[in-house]
């Protein structure tokens, strides 16, 4: 799938009196790695939720190529080629890793209760094929050896990877990652950075990344958008953004150089 451009146009999101997003606009170029950063509560996850249709924008629109996402039901997203990981992982903790990742294949497969129940030959065949692919994705993310372990028994870092694997299992053209490196140490973060690189290089997809680990963001992003109190306060290359005094004030803090 050739990725399309994601355009966020003047999106405003209100919760009662609170403006979680305030007329936010930015584009994610096809095939690029775009980071969305900002202080806690700035509206990054909310922005993801608007893109995914989980929140209805109060104003503004979001386009993916020609499709207006803000008019789609959330379950259409996967079919449009958008995969997403979650800040809190949002997995079925009693189910196995493989079962969780296979959920990502939902939109790619067919069959209702009767077909599946009867285990028609074509159902079993596709099921097997997709399970192989899911295993391949897990392998790629380094969780291939825990395919049959319930997610609840995994350490946090592995859980985050399962979540990413599930998002990849959608076979997305656009991948949304919400703080994938949270809870990982430096080496693991570096490993993740590499993985993200590889995903983009080998699959040629666009990635929109929310992350607080500036090392990771500045190291791999092509472009960075910065939110603060729901407003877009900066948008540019990592270098530009890092130098922006407004961003330093609102987000990075004074001694970010050493800290980040």
């Amino acid at each position, binding site marked *: 799938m050739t990725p399309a451009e994601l355009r966020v146009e003047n999106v405003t999101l209100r919760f009662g009196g609170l403006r979680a997003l305030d007329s936010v606009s930015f584009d994610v170029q096809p095939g690029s790695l775009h980071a969305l950063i900002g202080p806690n509560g700035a509206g990054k996850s909310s922005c993801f939720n608007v893109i995914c249709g989980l929140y209805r924008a109060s104003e503004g629109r979001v386009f993916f190529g020609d499709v207006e996402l803000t008019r789609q039901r959330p379950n259409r997203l996967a079919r449009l080629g958008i995969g997403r990981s979650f800040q809190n992982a949002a997995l079925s903790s009693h189910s196995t890793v493989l079962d969780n990742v296979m959920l990502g294949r939902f939109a790619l497969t067919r069959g209702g209760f009767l077909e599946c129940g009867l285990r028609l030959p074509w159902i079993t065949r596709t099921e097997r094929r997709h399970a192989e692919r899911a295993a391949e994705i897990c392998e790629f993310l380094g969780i291939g050896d825990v395919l049959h372990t319930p997610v609840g028994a995994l350490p946090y870092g592995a859980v985050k990877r399962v979540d990413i694997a599930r998002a990849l299992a959608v076979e997305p053209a656009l991948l949304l990652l919400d703080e994938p490196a949270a*809870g*990982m140490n430096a080496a693991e973060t570096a490993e993740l950075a590499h993985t993200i690189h590889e995903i983009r290089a080998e699959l040629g997809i666009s990635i929109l990344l929310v992350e607080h680990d500036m090392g990771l963001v500045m190291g791999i992003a092509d472009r960075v958008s910065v939110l603060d109190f729901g407003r877009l306060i900066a948008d540019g290359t990592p270098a530009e953004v890092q130098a922006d005094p407004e961003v330093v004030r609102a987000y*990075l803090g004074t001694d970010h150089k050493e800290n980040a």
Partner: protein
Amino acid sequence: MLTVRNLHVRYGRSVAALHGIDLDVPDDGVLAVLGSNGAGKSTLLRTISGTLRLHRGTVSGGEVRYGERRIDRLDPAAIVGLGVVGVPEGRQIFARMSVDENLRAGGIGARSAEDRARARERVHELFPVLAERARQRAGLLSGGEQQMLAIGRALMAGPKLLLLDEPSLGLAPKIVERIAGIIREIHQQGTAVVLVEQNAVMALQVADQAVVLETGTVALAGSAAELSASEEVQRLYLGGHAESDTAAEEEAALARRQRVGARGLSRWTG
């Protein structure tokens, strides 16, 4: 003074999470605990705070003492009563209660109403957003705001020993700085801290002692400065942070490939 001696912990019948941990945290100390995913850091804190049982875990050997008291058999509330208060991994705020009620719940363990009022003031000072959102349902806060609430809630009990499990998780750099500041401040006011962190830079900055756990045992221990200087800590925990340091990244990637023997991921052709 918290002392951990030869601690063994299991989950269920099959998983041995800790085998033979020894630690000391003096009453005025800050101990940083580093280690990769699954090393047993959270397990260690659960054991100290007495919540291990809630995860079907059991202490299968060794002991934990706080002062003279042996605490590995006490129930969590009694441990809180001794002044040992924890912030669990992954926030675990009371999502359906308001922000304010969360703080109130945190204050239940406090000694007096006065203490409680003082603590609340202080929490609001540290995290103004918690005052602004006092009436909001805690579950609707952003991830970082929830983390702040979790720390604030623990502070409400006026702890003498604070156990923090990855407090910087999901926090913006500026807030991480602030948390570091807070930890220092708490420490100066006479509270000991055990800090489990992935953000080693921050952890080693505020700690005076540090240990590195690897698969349930103490791999390295020493003063924070010593550990910062050690090569392994440099590589695994401090390394990848420099923006330009692609060498470390490469190395890590290589390590991964060797570990899982994975090929790359090719496109799905249907």
